[in-house]
């Protein structure tokens, strides 16, 4: 009897096990995270989403003015943004203009033996309007060259003022930074320019001899090649941003808004800070009155 009971129970269990073992088993795991995704580009330090720039102007014919704004990429990839201005009133011309900058080039000075004894690197910051910009110049140089570097500034009239002279305070190693505020306040209206020069201080025309120290002639050809210039600008209380890091060619944009129905696009590099102006020009014959002009900035649609 006992054997029969066990047989029946065993049969039932075996059937159950047999069926269960046929099941398709999936091993399953899931992890979940939530993140807040922010806009890729800031306009004047704020989210560009649904934030048009409103410019209200009561104008007379022939007037023009520009307003300073800035874009900042927060992404790790290049991002293209589009600027869109409306209304497209007849008689109003809107242009977008970057504030900076074109590093024009470098001049090299040689002695009679064709040895490089000096150089002059300059860049031009044009179309400046803001009065509260602060500039930082970073220089890396060869030790023999560095103590002779001075930084000059000019308002474009041709005469240079020394705004910083390192002289022998710096041994030329590593990165050297000098920060200075906009010095020509009041004289740098829109269209003026400033210029920085990195130049051995006593570089009179025709003089072939320049000294690292009282006894050591600077005559190492290779020593002159190690230079590096970076300009940062700081507007108001915002942090210093690289405008065009070490670029030797960074042409600004000046784009006349071609059509209010289309985006004017600008591509920002990762982390790039791009100051720009929206300039409004009113025709001589425009009807006198008050105009509201909106500009929006949006990331361009993915291609």
């Amino acid at each position, binding site marked *: 009897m006992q054997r029969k009971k066990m047989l029946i129970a065993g*049969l039932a269990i075996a059937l159950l096990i047999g*069926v269960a073992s046929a099941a398709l088993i999936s091993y399953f795991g899931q992890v979940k995270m*939530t993140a807040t995704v922010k806009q890729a580009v800031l306009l004047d330090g704020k989210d560009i989403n649904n934030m048009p720039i409103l410019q209200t102007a009561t104008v007379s014919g022939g007037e023009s003015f520009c307003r300073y704004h800035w874009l900042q990429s927060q992404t790790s990839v290049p991002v293209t943004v589009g600027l869109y201005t409306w209304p497209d009133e007849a008689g109003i011309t809107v242009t977008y203009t970057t504030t900076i900058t074109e590093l024009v080039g470098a001049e090299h000075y040689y002695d009679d033996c064709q040895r490089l004894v000096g150089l002059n690197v300059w860049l031009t910051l044009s179309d400046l309007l803001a009065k509260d910009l602060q500039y930082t110049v970073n220089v890396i140089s060869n030790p023999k060259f560095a103590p002779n570097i001075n930084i000059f500034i000019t308002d474009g009239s041709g005469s240079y003022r020394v705004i910083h002279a390192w002289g022998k305070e710096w041994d030329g190693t590593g990165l050297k930074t000098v920060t200075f505020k906009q010095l020509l306040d009041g004289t740098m209206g829109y269209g003026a320019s400033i210029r920085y020069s990195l130049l051995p201080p006593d570089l009179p025309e025709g003089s072939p001899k320049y000294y690292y120290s009282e006894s050591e002639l600077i005559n190492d050809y290779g020593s002159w090649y190690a230079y590096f210039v970076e300009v940062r600008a700081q507007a108001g209380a915002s942090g210093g941003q690289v405008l065009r890091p070490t670029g030797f060619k960074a042409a600004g944009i000046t784009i006349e808004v071609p059509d209010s129905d289309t985006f004017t696009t600008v591509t920002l590099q990762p982390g790039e800070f791009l100051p720009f102006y929206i300039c409004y020009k009113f025709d001589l014959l425009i009807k006198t009155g008050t105009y509201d002009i909106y500009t929006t900035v949006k990331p361009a649609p993915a291609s």
Partner: protein
Amino acid sequence: MNRQFVLLALGLILTIPVFQPSIFSKQFKPLQGLHVVKSLPLNMVAGSTYEWEVSFVNPKSESGLMNVTLEVAEKKTVVGFGEFHVEGILESYDNPPGEYHTLTLTFTETGGGVFQSQALINERFNIIKLEISSVPNLMPGEYTFTLTITVNYISDMIKSAVEFLHNMYNEKIKLCAESPETAPNTYWLVSDNLWAYKALEKHDQKLSNTIKSKLIELAKTYKLPTDAKGLPISYKHEAVIGDTVPTPFNVTVQYTLYSDNYALKTEIANGTAVMEDWQEYADLLLYAALSKHWEGKDDNATALFNKAKNMWDGVGINDKAAKADGHYATYKLGLLLYTSKVLGIKLDFETQLIATIWKLQDETTGGIITGYKPDGTPFGNTNTETTSITIIALT
């Protein structure tokens, strides 16, 4: 007392069919040790790339099909196609001195913000490293990233498929029926039972021998063409069990050997006409490839195999039959995989192929569904032929 036990046992037995569907259906067990190694940041910026790492333990330390799904969703907006991009790497290793492997995970966006990748895993410890990037113009908002990992073992697939054959087997006839739904009373000698005996050889030797003996007996009874072992042949399908077949193939004729309360059938490629276009059919190419291999002509075998392999279009084997039918045949996947193993030529889409078969395994019965549409939707029913060749290929 005795009666109580009998009633209890009967109750249990009768209960099984009632609960059978749920018992047979796919069961989920937790993936061991799944945890986040490197979190996504709580704040992200559109257009940037972020890393996410998770690790888990392969529960069985045996070959399994891993499915990784990343779903990105936002509370207020619908995530569009192409707004995110996902790249991944699987790093895996066993306990020392196990080898360390890395495998690139290719993610396919199957829906807006839904990415899927599949891989075969073997090692015990696994780390998935993801790089998730978005387009710069992504709508700001609160995004949820859900990573789902499932692992299905080849051994479980085989086990279920073998169980299907057990259920298809008729003790009285000593053969497996064609299909549980469409042809439960039809018994094909070739190919169904010729492949079923082969499929069961390593999983149920006794049943395999029973079917084999019955096939030999029926071949004699009906004077069918046979191979050296006396098994019925079709001049095609026996290539799978190690026989050579003649090429080119003749047109196939289907024969009904017996028909009453059940039907005995077989097919033989002994039509008078030669199939001039036989190389446009993947199955025929693969039978020929296997045959050439058994003859020791591996160069010829490889050439034929490659022709069939090249019919893979990323979804299925798109041969002349598939083009005409508008759907893919699942058994050709099994046949291709099996031939690749016999010839020792690894398919570069093997993972995808196995994943496709896995999706076509019926959750309830363990049988493999005969076909599928270009969008992956199953088409047809489970049957003995497809399930058998799948077991042969995966074993």
